[in-house]
């Protein structure tokens, strides 16, 4: 009986120590360079999926990538929610004629990534074709292990 109690104690100690070790590793991971590079790579992968989904009007995939709290500001300074943006895409009100993004830069803050870049995609929205090169900021936040776009804003480059 005493041997059994001793075994239980040792198993508990081992489990608790393992949990503490894993938690401390998770904390360290937020800080080190490797996790920064990993976050950048993961966000780039999600961004590439988003690009493809936009061109193919894959609303189901965009629904997974966009956070429910998405705030989307386009080059005309119009603000949209996730529901509005997905409805416009689903209804064919947003049409991409060409897609080109480049010059990405990333700033990683734990579970938040600020991604900036330049796009010269040709897109039609509300009857207007936009060809003007523009800078954009995409904010990705990791929730439940998944990177989601929580904010997007684009600004035309006028000079």
């Amino acid at each position, binding site marked *: 009986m*005493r041997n059994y*109690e*001793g075994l*239980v*104690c*040792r198993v*508990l*100690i081992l*489990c*608790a*120590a393992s*949990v*503490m070790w894993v*938690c*401390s590793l*998770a*904390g360290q991971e*937020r800080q080190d360079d490797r996790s920064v590079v990993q976050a950048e790579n993961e966000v780039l992968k999600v961004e590439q999926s988003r690009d493809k989904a936009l061109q193919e009007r894959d609303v189901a995939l965009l629904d997974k990538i966009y*956070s*429910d*709290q998405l*705030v989307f*500001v*386009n*080059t*005309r*300074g*119009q*603000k949209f929610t996730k529901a509005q943006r997905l409805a416009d895409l689903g209804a064919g009100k947003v049409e991409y004629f060409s897609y080109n993004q480049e010059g990405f*830069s990333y*700033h990683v*803050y*734990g*579970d*938040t990534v*600020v991604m*900036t870049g330049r796009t010269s995609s040709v897109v039609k929205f509300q009857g207007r074709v936009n060809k003007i*090169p*523009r*800078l*954009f*900021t995409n*904010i990705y*936040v*990791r*929730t*439940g292990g998944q990177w989601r776009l*929580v*904010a997007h*804003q*684009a*600004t*035309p*480059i*006028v*000079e």
Partner: protein
Amino acid sequence: MSEHTYMRKELRIAALLVIVALGMMGVASSQEATHEPDADIQKAILAADNERYDAMQKKDMAALDRLHGDGLVFINTKGRMLNKAEYLEEIRSGALKFLSVETDDYTFCIYGDTAIMSGRAKSVVEYHGVVNKKPRRFTSVFIKMHGQWVLVAHQATLIADESN
């Protein structure tokens, strides 16, 4: 030490470790993003932003240095991207002047130590000698670092006149 006393001691250590481990799990899970808008955080963000505008108008470079993250990415309405040094230099040199500050229509999204504030600005700004009164939409990202909310990203876009 008797075997019984030794067992009790071992059991206490096990119980203590389990409590500590559960606590650590709680802390780890609390670092996951939350979507709950927090009134206190919103107030703190607005206070930090007001302090930022105040420092800009007074050219208080020490305060501006403290209120902006070293990795700041600032995209202005002309589609010009500036880093922290470039942005602060525009304020210090007088290339960027806020003649008045007026912002409204805020939306906040809070994810742990990250706050995203979007809004509308009607501030009157003089930029390289040209006065801009046009309304614009902005998105600002604040991160809490060492107890202080600092601006790490900002982008502004002119609100187009839809009659054009």
